Structure formats: structure tokens, C-alpha cells
């Protein structure tokens, strides 16, 4: 093989970087609106009662979750794949006009899918299943996007010059397979226009409406097998792929332990899927499924911490970089939030804790210390690392990046601390009895008490959003006004240049 580094083609990566940022702003802004609607319900009708249907909490809620998951995060996964994939496989997208075409096709179908998803959710066309709200036409479009990504991934792998798959590629493959399996099975539904009335009428009512293939408890079981593991394969697995690439590249340090990465990877693959049952503790699913969910959630600490410790120890002897580089800060704090979140989750999955935590804001807090602190930080760090190499310009402002880091960290801390207090307060109030054995509080008492925490959470979310806008500005200025680079910024391992 020649010594000269390959010229990689980042056309598709750039397209997905753009959507990562746009959907990030959209999804997070909706999140902030929702947070303040809970604190100040008047905001539900902020555009007047005529438009209240579209600005109200319940209509916006799936738009928030789906735009940050399928918009921001999945775009981030695609963007980083189209950057990392080429580099660790040592093959350029430009070498195959077919893969390049499919990559662009994937992007444009993705854009159309997102547009259809947004419109349908605003109109209230939802299956009600969390993170699987889309009706069947959108589902089919999502499957097409995913298959195109898979074809591209395995196509690039087929053309690779580096025979051994780097750790990040393992995680990207797992992301592809995991989401494919989960999404297909959870979205099994029968379109209602297939039914025929006794009078022989067909295609009755809305053509896009459907009925879930599963009923009641089974539906719940499949949904939370999906819901929990969509978090696994959307918010954990691909983000670990990113940190395994970007941290060693940015710091010039080799991964601490190959064996630890093996243990964490295969451990995570096997253990994660069992834990879905912890969303259904004390429900009507069989007791043994609940217990398995609970136990495997505890076991899950091992592979999760394995990856996180591997990351932190990668910085061994080089901790001054954390002080010097805001980009390293994002990745190290991200890994720390990952450790934190993967300890908090198992604690909440213990039955006696879950009895208090379930249905409360503590769960919302848990989700957000993971997604804001880990997913958001890592995706932004990935894009910050990619920007100088993709646009061949220096990052516009390191000090802006540092201020962004502290503002967002403060935001995350405000978010999860307020939600801890809110969740535990509410959980305890729901179960409190007075000396006669009657319930001590009516439900509304447990709502009004949360007002200050909802307000603090809103501020936390707003700070995070402000940080994201700073990120956007910094990337924009890098693209347009950053100092031009003649050669790529130096970085070492993994796998050379």
C-alpha cells in the first residue's frame, strides 16, 4: 500500500453534518418549549387558542423526542459514519460512484422522510408508541433509509484496504443490525384500508391509519423491548463508536485496552436486550420477565463501565490535555456522564427503587443526563473534530468552544438535579399515607409542588440550547471564516492517518 494518505470524500458526511445541526436546534428548541409549558401552562396557547392544537404539550411531545432521536442523533450517526467509516477502512467514497450515489440518495430520502414525519406528527397522526410514533408509510420510508445506509456500510467494508475492522466499525455494524431488528418488529401493523365491510366497501377512512399487530400486554412487551433498546442502539452503541474513534484521534493516545473493548462490546451486545423488562416492573407482564429485566440491568453496568473506563484510561498520563483542550473536555465529560447514567439506570431498575421512580420525572432526568451529557456532547465533539478536516479550516474560536462547554455542563447539571428532586418528591408523595391509612395527598398536590423544579429544568434546558446555538455559530464561522489549513491537523492512532 502507498504511504501517501488517501484523499477522502466527505460530500455525504457534510450533508448529514448540516442536518445534525438543524434538527438539533429544532428538537432542542421544542424541548425547551415543552419544559416551560409544564412550568407555565399559559405557554400552551402562546400562538393563540386557534393554533393551540399545534403548540400544546401533548402534540409537541412526540415531535421533541423524535426530532432529537431520528433527526439530531441519527443524523450525527450518519455524519460520523461517512467520515469515520472511510478513514478506518482506508477507502474513499470517491472510489465508488455507486456508493456515492446511494449515500446521496439516502440523504434525500431521509430529508423527505423527516418532512413527512414532522407533518404527520403535527397533525396528530401517531401510533402512540414512544419513539415509534410514525404511521406505516413513514415507517416504510425509514426502512428504505436504513437499508440504504446498510448497503453503503457493507459496500464500503467490502472495498476496504484495512482488513481488520476497527472497534468503531463493530459498533456501527451493531447499530445497523440492532435498530433494523427492533424497528421492524415493533412497527408491525395492519393498515386499516385492507379491511372490507360487510357491504363490500374497502379503503375506508384515513389510508395511512393502522392497527398494531400486537395487543395489550404483548404490545407493551414488544414496545419496551424496542423502546429500551432503541436507546441502546441509537444512544449508546453508535456513540461508543464515535468515542472510540474521536478520542484517540484527538488526543493522540492509543486505546487503553483491546481486551476491555472486546469484553465491553460483546457483553453489551448480549446483555442490553434483556434489560427492556425494567420498563414494565409491577405491570402485567410475567414476573420472571420483570425479574430478568431487573437483574440484567444491574449486569449491564459491567460492559457500560468497561467502555467508559477504557476511554478514561486512554487519557492515562495525558490528563493535562483535558485542561488544555475544550474538545477533549467534551469527550471526557461525555464518557463520565455515560458512566453516571449507566449506574443511575440500573439503580432505577431495582424493583424497590422503581416502585418510587417509575412514572415520575426522575426517569426524565435519567434520560436527559444520558442524552445531553453523553450523546449530545459526543456528537458535538465528533463534529468539532471533523470540521477542520472536512472544511480544511481551523476551528473558528476555541474560547467560544470552552464557554459553550461550561454553559452546557451547567445546563445538564441543573436539568438532572431538579428532575431528581421532582421525581423522588412526587414518588414519595403518591405513596404517602396519613395516620389513619388514607392517602395523604390528592394528585394535584403532587403536581403543584413540582413547579419550582419544572422552572429550573426549563432554565437548564435553555442553557443547553444556548450552548448548541454557540456550537452552530462556531461551526458556521469555521466553514466560512476559519483560518485555511494547508494540511490536516496532526493526529495519531488509531490506524495511522
Amino acid at each position, binding site marked *: 500500500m502507498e504511504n501517501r494518505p488517501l484523499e477522502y470524500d466527505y460530500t455525504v458526511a457534510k450533508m448529514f453534518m448540516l442536518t445534525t445541526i438543524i434538527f438539533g436546534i429544532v428538537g432542542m428548541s421544542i424541548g425547551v418549549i415543552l419544559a416551560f409549558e409544564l412550568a407555565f401552562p399559559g405557554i400552551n396557547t402562546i400562538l393563540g387558542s386557534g393554533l393551540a392544537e399545534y403548540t400544546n404539550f401533548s402534540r409537541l411531545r412526540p415531535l421533541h423526542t423524535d426530532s432529537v432521536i431520528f433527526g439530531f442523533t441519527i443524523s450525527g450517526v450518519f455524519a460520523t459514519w461517512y467520515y469515520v467509516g472511510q478513514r478506518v477502512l482506508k477507502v474513499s467514497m470517491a472510489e465508488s460512484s455507486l456508493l456515492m450515489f446511494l449515500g446521496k440518495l439516502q440523504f434525500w430520502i431521509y430529508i423527505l422522510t423527516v418532512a413527512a414525519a414532522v407533518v404527520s406528527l403535527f397533525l396528530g397522526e401517531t401510533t402512540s408508541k414512544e419513539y415509534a410514533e410514525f404511521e406505516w408509510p413513514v415507517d416504510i420510508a425509514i426502512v428504505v433509509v436504513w437499508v440504504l445506509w446498510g448497503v453503503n456500510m457493507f459496500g464500503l467494508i467490502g472495498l476496504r484496504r484495512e482488513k481488520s475492522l476497527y472497534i468503531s466499525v463493530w459498533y456501527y455494524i451493531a447499530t445497523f443490525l440492532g435498530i433494523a431488528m427492533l424497528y421492524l418488529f415493533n412497527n408491525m401493523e395492519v393498515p*386499516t384500508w385492507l379491511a372490507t*365491510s360487510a357491504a363490500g366497501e374497502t379503503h375506508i377512512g384515513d389510508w395511512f391509519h393502522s392497527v398494531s399487530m400486537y395487543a395489550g400486554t404483548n*404490545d407493551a412487551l414488544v414496545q419496551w423491548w424496542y423502546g429500551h433498546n432503541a436507546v441502546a442502539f441509537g444512544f449508546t452503541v453508535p456513540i461508543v463508536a464515535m468515542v472510540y474513534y474521536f478520542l484517540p484521534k484527538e488526543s493522540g493516545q492509543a486505546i487503553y485496552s483491546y481486551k476491555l473493548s472486546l469484553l465491553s462490546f460483546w457483553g453489551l451486545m*448480549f446483555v442490553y436486550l434483556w434489560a427492556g423488562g425494567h420498563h414494565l416492573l409491577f405491570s402485567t*407482564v410475567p414476573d420472571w420477565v420483570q425479574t430478568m429485566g431487573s437483574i440484567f440491568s444491574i449486569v449491564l453496568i459491567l460492559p457500560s463501565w468497561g467502555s467508559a473506563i477504557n476511554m478514561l484510561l486512554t487519557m492515562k498520563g495525558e490528563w493535562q490535555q483535558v485542561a488544555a483542550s475544550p474538545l477533549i473536555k467534551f469527550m471526557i465529560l461525555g464518557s463520565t456522564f455515560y458512566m453516571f447514567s449507566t449506574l443511575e439506570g440500573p439503580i432505577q431498575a431495582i424493583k424497590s427503587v422503581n416502585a418510587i421512580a417509575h412514572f415520575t*420525572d426522575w426517569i426524565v432526568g435519567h434520560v436527559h443526563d444520558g442524552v445531553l451529557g453523553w450523546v449530545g456532547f459526543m456528537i458535538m465533539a465528533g463534529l468539532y473534530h471533523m470540521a477542520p478536516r472536512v472544511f480544511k479550516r481551523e476551528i473558528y474560536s476555541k474560547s467560544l468552544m470552552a464557554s459553550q462547554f461550561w454553559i452546557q455542563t451547567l445546563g445538564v447539571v441543573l436539568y438532572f438535579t431538579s428532575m431528581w428532586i421532582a421525581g423522588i418528591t412526587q414518588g414519595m408523595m403518591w405513596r404517602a399515607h396519613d395516620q389513619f391509612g*388514607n*392517602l395523604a395527598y390528592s394528585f394535584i398536590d403532587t403536581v403543584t409542588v413540582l413547579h419550582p423544579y419544572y422552572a429550573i429544568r426549563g432554565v437548564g434546558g435553555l442553557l443547553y440550547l444556548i450552548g448548541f446555538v454557540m456550537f452552530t455559530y462556531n461551526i458556521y464561522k469555521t466553514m466560512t471564516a476559519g483560518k485555511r489549513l494547508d494540511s490536516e491537523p496532526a493526529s495519531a492512532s488509531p490506524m495511522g492517518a
Partner: protein
Amino acid sequence: MFHWLEKNPFFFAVGVFAAIAFAGLVEIVPNFAEASRPVIGTAPYSTLELAGRQVYIKNSCNACHSQLIRPFKSETDRYGHYSLSGEYAYDRPFLWGSKRTGPDLHRVGNYRTTDWHENHMKDPAAIVPGSIMPKYTWMYTKMVDIDTAFAEQLTDAQFFAVPYNKPVPMKELDVDGKPKTKIVKMGKSIAEANAMALVEAKDIVKNMKDQDIKDAVNKRGEIPEIVALIAYLNSLK
């Protein structure tokens, strides 16, 4: 072995898939037949109730309200008997929810009335001071989609053997000590389905105060979303 896998992407992918698919097979498959049997007293949804359920879903009521009463004294005190698996036999999709920003609704039909819902949905904070639930004013002017609810009933009956037009056992016993039965009827045509829903709606609006709603149903034969939603909520017992 691992080094070999890392050089052979196909077998690597197969290995990953086996590792992740295993748990689903073990946890989900054995439960399917067991859990889908309805308990005595559970009947399919009528056309108007199903239309109301669609309104419930359309507005993501399940984002803030659960329909799952856990077997704790504090929950049975507050909401009634804890939930049983067979009670959900006709719930497609399930609506357990994952967050109680508002109270559980699985048995709301036992302790709230048509009148209460009518006023509450218009302005929740006026009925429950301090409530942070938004107003659902558009439900009073938008008409519900009976056609799609009817299509859903047909799908339920044709693809999932939901017993429409068939007797289902109830909890009450007749004079011979056998369970009484109930037949939930489904229309033969779109026109009949709409007519049946209107009959149900007329029954609901008897207990409503809003004259516009009463007129819509009784005079114009139209069914506002709120009427269907109330029919659904009243059916949750």
C-alpha cells in the same frame, strides 16, 4: 476467534445478530399466547369508543397519563383495582404510558362523569385549581372521524379475531348462575357504522351542558371529538 471475526465482516455481523436476537426470543415469544386472553367482563370497543380512543391517541394523552395501576396499596387506594393482563386484550395499541404528569386513567370511568370531563377538558385549571393540563378547546369544534374508527373495527375483526357481533361473557351472573353476555355490534356498512355511533353519541350528550355540542349531535347528526373522547373515557372501568 475474535481476531478472525474482525477480519470477516459477514460472520461478525452474524455473531452480533445472534447475540442481540437471543434475549428477544427468550423473553417475548413464550408470553404471546398466555397474555392475550381476555378476562371475563372485557368487551371490544364500540365504534364511538374506538373513535374516542383515536382522539386520545391523536392528542398523545398517553404522554402524561398512564393506564396501568400497579399492585400497591397507594395506587389501589387512588385508582381502584390493580390492572390485569386480560383487561388489555382488545387494546391495539396498548396505552400504559410511561409518565404520570397527570393521574392514571385506567379506571377513570368509575369515578368521573360525562359532565366532569366536559368541563374539565375545556379548562382543566378551572375544575382542578393548580392543574397544568392544557385546554383542549378544539375538541369541541372538530368532528370525529367515525369512518376510520369503523375501518379499525373491521381490521380488528378480520385480522385479529376480535369478537364483534359475538357474545362475550360479563362478570354479572344471570338467574341460572351463568355469566351474562354482551354483544358489541359493528356496522355492516359505513353508513350504518355512522348511524350507530350517532346513537351512542346522543346517549352521551344527554349528560352534557354545552348547547353547541347538543345541537351538533341532535340536530345536525355530527359528532364533535369531545363526545367520542368522553365515550372512551367512560368505558375505562
